[in-house]
């Protein structure tokens, strides 16, 4: 699988890409957008749920659907081509599996958001669940849409009313449904013949794991070891200070002796 560029410059143009690389890039972007959609969907109904969040969901959804339609055209065209060499066909089938799986995830998330949207209606000022989330999700949306920054006016009221949005969502769910069924019929990919090429485990990321680990272990250990952690932090500070003092003393000695 190729390296993922965070800000991939695709915009779902209508011209169909001709190379294998472009197909991979499309699928990768689709996977990225689906992942971002899931993060956004997990905030619905919680205390940060707002019209902005719903708007962000809508934008992400639309982007995902555009990518899906483009990938579908590309993949269907390539897979129906009988003259495709075997190696490329296998690659295409892997992409096909990735495409259908991400579409299924998107479908499931959309259904959940639709259900939650009807339960947690913002207009009727229902109570939202206090989940502990505090921040905004605009960065996630920006990542999904491949924009450097999601600019929105602070008091911009989204143009779409809630009912309209729900019905639109329903239509989109039906659309994705139809797409999935169509795909099953049009292209015959034997799932049991497709073999994954990648590793079983994801390579562990080295960056930023420490602080996150700190947060989670703190939550696990409980109030007692919070004090303990604070105590151990104080201890570390003391050790560092003593090391610094020793260094100063050594340098002074060096200065004196030389």
């Amino acid at each position, binding site marked *: *699988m190729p390296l*993922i560029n*965070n800000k991939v410059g695709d915009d779902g143009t209508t011209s169909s890409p001709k190379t294998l690389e472009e197909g991979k890039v499309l699928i*990768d972007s689709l*996977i990225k957008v*689906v*992942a*971002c959609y899931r*993060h956004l*969907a*997990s905030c*619905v*109904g919680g*205390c940060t749920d707002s019209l902005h969040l719903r708007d962000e969901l809508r934008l992400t959804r639309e982007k995902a659907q555009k990518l899906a339609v483009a990938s579908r055209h590309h993949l269907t065209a390539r897979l129906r081509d009988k003259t495709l060499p075997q190696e490329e066909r296998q690659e295409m089938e892997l992409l096909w*599996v*990735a495409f259908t*799986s*991400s579409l*299924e995830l998107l479908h*499931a998330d959309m*259904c*959940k958001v639709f*259900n939650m949207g009807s*339960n*947690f209606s913002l207009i009727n000022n229902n*109570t939202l*669940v*206090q*989940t*502990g*989330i*505090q*921040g905004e*999700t605009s*960065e*996630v949306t920006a*990542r999904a849409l491949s924009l450097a920054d999601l600019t929105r006016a602070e008091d911009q009221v989204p143009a779409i009313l809630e009912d309209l949005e729900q019905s639109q969502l329903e239509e989109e769910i039906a659309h994705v*449904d139809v797409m999935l*069924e169509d795909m099953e019929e049009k292209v015959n990919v034997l*799932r*049991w013949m497709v073999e*994954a090429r*990648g*590793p079983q*485990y*994801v390579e*562990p*990321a080295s960056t930023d794991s420490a*602080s*996150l*680990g700190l*947060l*989670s272990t*703190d*939550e696990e*250990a*409980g109030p007692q070891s*919070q004090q303990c*952690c*604070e105590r151990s932090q104080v201890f570390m500070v003391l050790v560092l200070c003593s090391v610094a003092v020793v260094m100063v003393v050594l340098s002074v000695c060096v200065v004196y002796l030389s």
Partner: protein
Amino acid sequence: MTIRNVRDHGQRFRPRMACLKKVEAVMLEMQDPKTGVKSQPQKLVITTIPHAITGEDVVTWLANRYTIEAEEAWALGTMLVAFGYIYPLQDHKRLVIKPDTALYRFQTPYFWPAQQWPVEDTDYAIYLAKRNIRKKGVLEMHEQEQYNGLHKWMNHKWDFIVMQAKEQYRAGKERKKPDRAVFDCQERAYWVVHRPPPGTVSAMDYGLERMVDPNAEEKETSDFFRRIMIFTQQSIMRPRVKSSVSIGALVKYSITCNKHDPFLAPCLPSNPWVTDDVTYWLLNMANVDIPTKMRVERWTFSFGELLSDPRGRDDFRLFLKKEFSGENLAFWEACEDLKWGTAATMNEKAQQVYKTFLARGAPRWINIDGKTMEVTVKGLKHPHRYVLDAAQTHIFMLMKKDSYGRYLKSPVFKDTQKRAIGPDQHRFSVSQLEANARKRRPSISPIIVRQQEKEERARMATSGPVDITQVMSKLSNKGKEVPPPKK
């Protein structure tokens, strides 16, 4: 992609989970800033996260809201945690509510359990892959096993799973640190509920799935009324037993079988499911030489019990051999064989049975009345699985009324009864129980058991039953011509 025959949109109904709607209503009430549960911020080393609630607050709120006792409120709170609507912040694997200052938090609605949607294995695989990203080797043993299993059977989409896990991790990094921590806790709590570690009780046990929503109101069409009419007509025509009679039978059954039920009376020597000691099973195997006292006692309850126990049947067969009336039991066994055997061998078996037992002058002719014989012979022209049912029932009743009584008074049975063993109850200490659990081994393979049974049967067939007619024809001159069996 998932292999799905029905794109169900949540139309697989899980009726037992219909209570979730009510639980959601309770949850929403708890959120009210004025009348709901009081929340406090949770202080961590570098930040504070709001909306933490204590266990005792939840329990008190429930007790006040529904005017119930503290114990019941405690049980209700545990149910909320077990379903996954509230998750504990410390000790996240134990899904109980502790009515003290232990901290909990509400789960986000995305991760609430849903009646309509099943929990997908793809999502679980993605979650486990994400856990691996943060730190390699952090999966527990059961999670590791499940991960390997999923890798095997979902292999075709493994690339997708790995990619999606990476993308979700990266998307998560775009969020602020406290939010990221909260999201991780939420996800972890979700999976503790839906993929519980082994040995824990899961609240998500929802029974069978149904294709029709049992909560939905049924439309009153003519078909609906027709079904009601058929149902009521059939229930009028059904023969009924007086409740005094049926209850009397139930009471008698309970009294006789009370000591033989392993739930109600201790199993001798010890219940293998409890103590991991398989002596009980070894003593009660089908081909054991000396049966246990309890087993022999069960043979006296009814003739059906005697026949269904293979050791009992062997004993009965021995008795009948001594009385030279073994053909009844042999016929009964042949009928059972026909009923439960494969369809391919049915014709052949039916003909064999006719030749051996039913034809005039057959070597092991059984004594059934004329009418049954007529019906059976007519049926044998087009044999099917249950063609010998009438004859079998007749022979069964014959054996039950006649031979069974004599068997129970016979020296064969009395001898078996005398020799039967009554093992003492095991008394294991805790360390011995642990040792037993460690020494657990799978029992003898059923394939080997079946082979042994086949050999046993072959041996019995070759040793040959003692037929009165064979004996008689040997004694007299051998000129008697056996007429060819009618087809």
